[in-house]
């Protein structure tokens, strides 16, 4: 049996420039941080049962992976030629569709876990690339590459997606004091609105050509954001996130809506320097950067506004940064020969 986990991530800036249509012409850049919320996968060989089982919100047991409904498990099992005698179960700290990159975290864990099942170890970069191949090339999802890289590598990192397809990963090596200060200034608030990243991004990708200059500006702004974080200028980073969010809303009509705008205004009015909807937008989680002393007031304002617009699932999600990427926590398959 193999137990493997992949962290979720908060995307700080640059989302959208990690989509191939953009970075093939101009380098895309993002900064994200992994947090202490994880997707866990259990992969169990079942030598005496000639079936494939997938257990997630549903349980599927089929005689061949081509009969599976779960698109990612199905595609990867077929790609790797695993056709029988396996159970795959998934567990998560948070529900999906929250804008925390959970679907790509799932993919990276699946990729690394199934390779371990076959006795192959994989570097973070290999696992990220294979997960991108699974989601973008095989399943044709109109998404970017940042979440796969964030889940595979872990930590607070700067990613550059180069035109030739290579990816540069640079950790922002903040010491524990700066890192704790940044973490303590951040507020994560789940709106209770589920959304599919593909719906939001599909529309954005369609309009990318006409808004190419805005994407170039966004990509270039990530370099400045990195400088602010390295200097420990959290207020500066918050104010920049605010500007960046206003610009991002213009990139697609599904990125925000009246309800989300009303929540954002409530947060800013209560004292946040800046914030954004995490991930593609359209729902999921808000991240605010604010002086820690203002957090209580901001939460109160957000909860009141959420109640007003009848968001029943809205709630605060406390979190910590982690350095963890996608890690095998347990593996007792006897295949490690020297």
């Amino acid at each position, binding site marked *: 049996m193999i137990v493997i986990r992949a962290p979720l991530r908060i995307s700080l800036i640059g989302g959208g420039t990690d989509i191939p249509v953009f970075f093939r012409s101009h380098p895309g850049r993002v900064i994200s941080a992994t947090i202490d919320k994880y997707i866990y996968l259990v992969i169990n060989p079942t030598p005496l049962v000639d079936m494939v089982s997938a257990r997630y919100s549903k349980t599927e047991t089929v005689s061949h992976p081509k009969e599976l409904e779960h698109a990612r498990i199905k595609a990867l099992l077929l790609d790797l030629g695993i056709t029988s005698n396996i159970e795959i179960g998934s567990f998560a700290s948070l529900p999906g569709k929250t804008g925390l990159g959970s679907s790509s975290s799932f993919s990276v864990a699946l990729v690394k876990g199934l390779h371990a099942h076959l006795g192959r170890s994989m570097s973070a970069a290999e696992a990220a690339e294979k997960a991108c191949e699974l989601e973008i090339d095989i399943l044709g999802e109109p998404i970017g590459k940042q979440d796969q890289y964030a889940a595979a590598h872990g930590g607070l990192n700067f990613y550059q997606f180069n035109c030739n397809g290579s990816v540069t990963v640079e950790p922002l*090596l903040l010491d524990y004091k700066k890192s*704790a200060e940044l973490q303590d200034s951040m507020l994560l608030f789940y709106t209770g609105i589920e959304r599919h990243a593909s719906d939001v991004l599909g529309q954005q990708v369609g309009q990318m050509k006409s808004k190419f200059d805005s994407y170039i500006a966004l990509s270039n702004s990530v370099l400045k954001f990195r400088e602010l974080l390295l200097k420990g200028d959290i207020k500066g980073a918050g104010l920049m996130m605010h500007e960046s969010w206003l610009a991002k809303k213009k990139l697609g009509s599904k990125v925000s809506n009246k309800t989300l705008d009303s929540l954002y205004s409530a947060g800013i009015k209560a004292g946040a320097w800046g914030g954004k909807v995490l991930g593609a937008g359209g729902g999921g989680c808000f991240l605010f950067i604010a002086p820690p002393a203002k957090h209580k007031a901001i939460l109160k304002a957000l909860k009141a506004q959420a109640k007003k617009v009848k968001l029943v699932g809205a709630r605060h999600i406390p979190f910590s940064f982690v350095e963890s990427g996608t*890690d095998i926590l347990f*593996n007792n398959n006897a295949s*490690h020969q020297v």
Partner: protein
Amino acid sequence: MKEYIEQHIEEATAALRAVSSDEIAKCMVQIQRVFERDGRIYIFGNGGSLALATHWVSDFNKTVFGHNVELHTKRFQAIRLPTTEEEYSAWTNDVGHDSVFVGPLQNYLQEHDCVIAISSSGNSQNVIKAAQYAKKRGVPVIALAGFDGGELNKLADVKILVPTPKGRYDLVEGAHGVILHLITWYFRDYFEHKLAKKTSHGKKKNK
């Protein structure tokens, strides 16, 4: 006499200054990751390097959490290989000197662990064998090397190299000692800081 001493201090300082602080920071990140996934840190080397490994393990397992040891329920698990002198001599005598680190490592190593390999020349075969085994298993290797780094520095994921003229074991081992203490003190300060924040929050809540 004074000149000799001062020159040595100059050389030792220069050797330490030549170490990449980025690589030391990456080492902290790897150790933090191992902590988050409840893994173990295996450390080993020959001669003076083995003494450094033993010294570091005793410091790291205790000193990091030393001030409020009872409040830290989750702690580091750092282990020097081999764990006893008897095991060392058994591997050497029965299997061969190249097996003294890779032998015990094979007994213990899990994918969620990490390895710190120390070799001043970077070319000690028994150290390299163990590092290669860790790499094969997908386990991160942190190297502490000297001189030109040798083979060890090439294969490591984190390359803490003290670049010196060949044969200057004194400078390399001295710098390694400082770096290992730096790692211990960084995590000591980090966990103290975390604990201080947690207890001050707790106090506020109680009010």
